[in-house]
């Protein structure tokens, strides 16, 4: 993917020395890593979308024979897996990487090389889990891979092996990145950038990192059990040995529900940047937005069993998880009202990012309401495993996360490339996307309530589902057109878009005080922050007159050489400014390759190719350890 992530330094003189492929392979610059995340994740977004298109084509009319049942299983499994782990999470990670250091006034993340490692592990893990579909041996157990269905007793082929090992690899990437960003947000803030002055995107990202840190271990453990069951004959999911068929479900959803918030909170953060900018008003209820984000994070760990009402947990458990699920709607609803209040009486500019942000509010609310419907266990029993649920989570994931991420892409494209995306094409994309999405997913409410189950590859005519399915399929084709328009706009605008200055939208936060695209060192001088909206203080003080300002926190820092918030328009190299930058290095890539090779050796174990498995695993482990040694003993800068 690195090779397609062509550098995009429109009109930059200083960066010309650093544009070869090697500079991308060895980069430790958070902006370049963010750019690579963005390109790779968009690529996987297309892959996942293609899978969805095939699924919808198969379901267009009753009893179609477009794909076989086996292929269909692989398609819906990989569609879910790809969209969750390879598209939406990494798209968020692209923004974490690119924006967090810029928003907090830092020159890089806390551990630049670990950051590169996270990206390479993600890329290699993504390839590992995706390539099998080209050979029709892709994972086919659903994105939540319920055991014992996924044990060798019921899934004897290699399909699930790729899923188990692939997710394990991707987990390493997410965890490493989470430790990195938590440390970055805690420790790399500019003087005066107190926690309660963090831009809302950084705040929501902060919450997400803690969710990652606490939610990934349970799935790691569940996957280890499954891996041991499949490769070493343990009995974790063997019902004959007394195992409980609900163990996997519980461990998976202990991870799976926080994962839902991992997918949505970064999008919430992005629209919380977009809405104030295009309403020319500070975010309404900043503190409450922060607390509701934290609240969602905490409660997110206490609602997992609402995915399992149908398994019969008993009245007490059902009631508790119902109540918790209804509770979590409160902080989420608070956010929606605060966004609306932010726009209220603002000078609204209906730019493309603003339209996507408003679409998030509307579409997510629909998905949120059907979500609250599920919180009632009796209602959920009717809805479980029907297309009603599919409609619900696509309204929150497509209508929420993807809309928010598109808002973020249109909003930050000028910062990342120095050029605007084409507004006209953006509008075409927006309207096609909005209509296509509703045409695809709204009819699923009806087909679901009429009883159409999820994951069936064929259905008989005459059950009242035909028209709704046809509508959903046409909607999907509309989304394909919309995405093609977006892709064209995204690629073309790098060279043909109108040139954007430092602050093309009149935004309030630090990332807009530096040139677009930002120089390698980000800030020639670290700014001293005195309020939540430093750039509005500078350019339009009237707008922030009602906001608290103080120098108090900044004064405790004596040697940061901070200067008041200012605009930086000149572009230099770090060498000219004497700013120490981390050395470029390919050691993280080398280490990541070692780790992925080590894991992939396991796939040979089930064919009694013990020697091959050991050779590959030990070879990979040696690479991993050698890479780590070289990495840890080499100075950073």
């Amino acid at each position, binding site marked *: 993917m690195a090779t397609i992530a062509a550098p995009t330094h429109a009109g930059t003189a200083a960066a010309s020395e650093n544009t070869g492929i090697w500079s991308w392979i060895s980069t430790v610059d958070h902006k370049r890593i963010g750019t690579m995340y963005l390109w790779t994740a968009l690529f996987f977004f297309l892959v996942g979308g293609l899978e969805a298109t095939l699924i919808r084509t198969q379901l267009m009319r009753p009893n179609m024979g477009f794909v076989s049942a086996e292929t269909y299983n692989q398609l819906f499994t990989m569609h879910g897996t790809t969209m969750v782990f390879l598209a939406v999470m990494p798209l968020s990670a692209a923004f974490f990487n690119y924006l967090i250091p810029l928003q907090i006034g830092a020159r890089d993340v806390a551990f630049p090389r670990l950051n590169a490692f996270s990206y390479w592990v993600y890329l290699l893990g993504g390839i590992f889990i995706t390539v099998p579909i080209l050979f029709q041996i892709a994972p086919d157990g659903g994105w939540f891979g319920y055991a014992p269905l996924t044990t060798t007793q019921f899934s004897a082929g290699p399909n699930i092996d790729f899923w188990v090992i692939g997710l394990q690899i991707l987990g390493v990437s997410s965890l490493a990145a989470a*430790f990195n960003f938590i440390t970055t947000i805690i420790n790399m803030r500019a003087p005066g950038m107190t926690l309660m002055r963090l831009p809302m995107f950084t705040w929501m990202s902060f919450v997400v990192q803690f969710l990652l*840190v606490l939610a990934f271990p349970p799935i790691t453990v569940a996957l280890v059990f499954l891996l041991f069951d499949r490769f070493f004959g*343990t009995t974790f999911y063997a019902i004959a040995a007394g*195992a*409980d068929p609900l*163990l996997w479900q519980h461990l998976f959803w202990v991870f799976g529900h926080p994962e839902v918030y991992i997918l949505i909170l970064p999008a919430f953060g992005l629209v919380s940047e977009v809405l104030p900018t295009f309403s020319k008003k500070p975010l309404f209820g900043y503190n409450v937005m922060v607390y509701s984000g934290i609240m969602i994070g905490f409660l997110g760990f206490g609602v997992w069993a609402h995915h399992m009402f149908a398994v019969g947990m008993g009245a007490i458990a059902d009631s508790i998880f119902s109540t918790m699920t209804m509770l979590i709607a409160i902080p989420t609803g608070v956010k929606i009202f605060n966004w609306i209040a932010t726009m209220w009486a603002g000078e609204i500019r209906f730019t493309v990012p603003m339209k996507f942000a408003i679409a998030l509010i509307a579409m997510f609310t629909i998905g949120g309401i059907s979500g609250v419907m599920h919180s009632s266990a009796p209602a959920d029993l009717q809805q479980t495993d029907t297309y009603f649920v599919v409609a619900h989570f696509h309204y929150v994931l497509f209508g929420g996360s993807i809309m928010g991420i598109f808002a973020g892409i249109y909003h930050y494209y000028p910062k990342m490339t120095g050029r605007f995306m084409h507004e006209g094409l953006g509008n075409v994309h927006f309207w096609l996307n909005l209509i296509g999405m509703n045409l695809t997913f709204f009819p699923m409410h009806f087909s679901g309530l009429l009883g159409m189950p999820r994951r069936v590859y064929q259905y008989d005519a005459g059950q009242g589902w035909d028209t709704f399915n046809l509508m959903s399929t046409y909607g999907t084709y509309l989304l394909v057109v919309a995405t093609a328009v977006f892709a064209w706009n995204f690629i073309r605008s790098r060279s043909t878009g109108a040139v954007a200055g430092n602050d093309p939208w009149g935004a309030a936060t630090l990332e807009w005080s530096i040139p677009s695209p930002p120089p390698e060192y980000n800030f020639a001088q670290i700014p001293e922050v005195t309020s939540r909206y430093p750039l509005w203080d500078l350019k339009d003080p009237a707008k922030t007159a009602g906001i608290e300002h103080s120098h108090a926190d900044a004064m405790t820092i004596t040697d940061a*050489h901070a200067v008041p918030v200012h605009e930086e328009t000149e572009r230099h190299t770090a060498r000219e400014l*004497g700013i120490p930058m981390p050395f470029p290095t390919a050691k993280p890539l080398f280490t990541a390759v070692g780790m992925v090779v080590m894991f992939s050796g396991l796939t040979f174990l089930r064919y009694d190719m013990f020697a091959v498995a050991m050779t590959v695993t030990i070879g990979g482990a040696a690479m991993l350890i050698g890479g780590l040694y070289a990495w840890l003993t080499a100075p950073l800068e």
Partner: protein
Amino acid sequence: MTAQTAAAHAQGHAHGHDAHDAHEHHHYTTTGLDNRKVAVWTFIGSECMLFASLISTYLIYKGKSVIGPFPHTEWTDPAGKVYKAILDIPVTSASTFVLLMSSFAMVLALQAVQLKGKPLAPTAGWWERLQRSSQFWLLATALLGTVFLGFQSYEFTSFVHEGLTIKTNLFGSTFFTLTGFHGAHVTVGVLWLMSLLWIDRSRGLAGKNDELLVDICALYWHFVDVVWIAIFTLIYLIK
């Protein structure tokens, strides 16, 4: 702001990052805490959830195995062969004690590095002098960790001889996986300690940066110890 003053400022910030002191450079941080220590504490937080998941599974499956051997009770198989209760409390009590003492050695190793360069009273006795030897305490910690691993491999081997493997039943699967994960953590810790010892022997551990290297290793080591404290009670002692 002109480029010259910007450069001068940046230069001022950069001073101290000189190449001659590559491993000693400290970055300015918002909280004054070292990045690596913040990251290690976060990692430990994550490990809490890892072991919580493993321990939960052990407890959920406790008493669910359809065949023996069992942890605390005898089992007679259909052929009439008798398998005794598997867990060996005296041996595990000894290894638990060893791991607790390794934590004691670890905390003194950190203290020894922190006390480097501070004058020692001429009247100081053997105990005060011993407390100054970071190498002694690092070696002691690593050795005690190794002894613990020795106990564990003895335990695993004898269990296998008594008829319990990771495949035998739910008890075997959950027990070996949980304690095996812990053992793997101890192994990583021993390797980490050995590399610190190697650095200490080759150039001496001293100064703020080296204190931090020992500090984060110590945090990891103590955490692995407290996990064992929980495992010992929940898995071995409670019937």
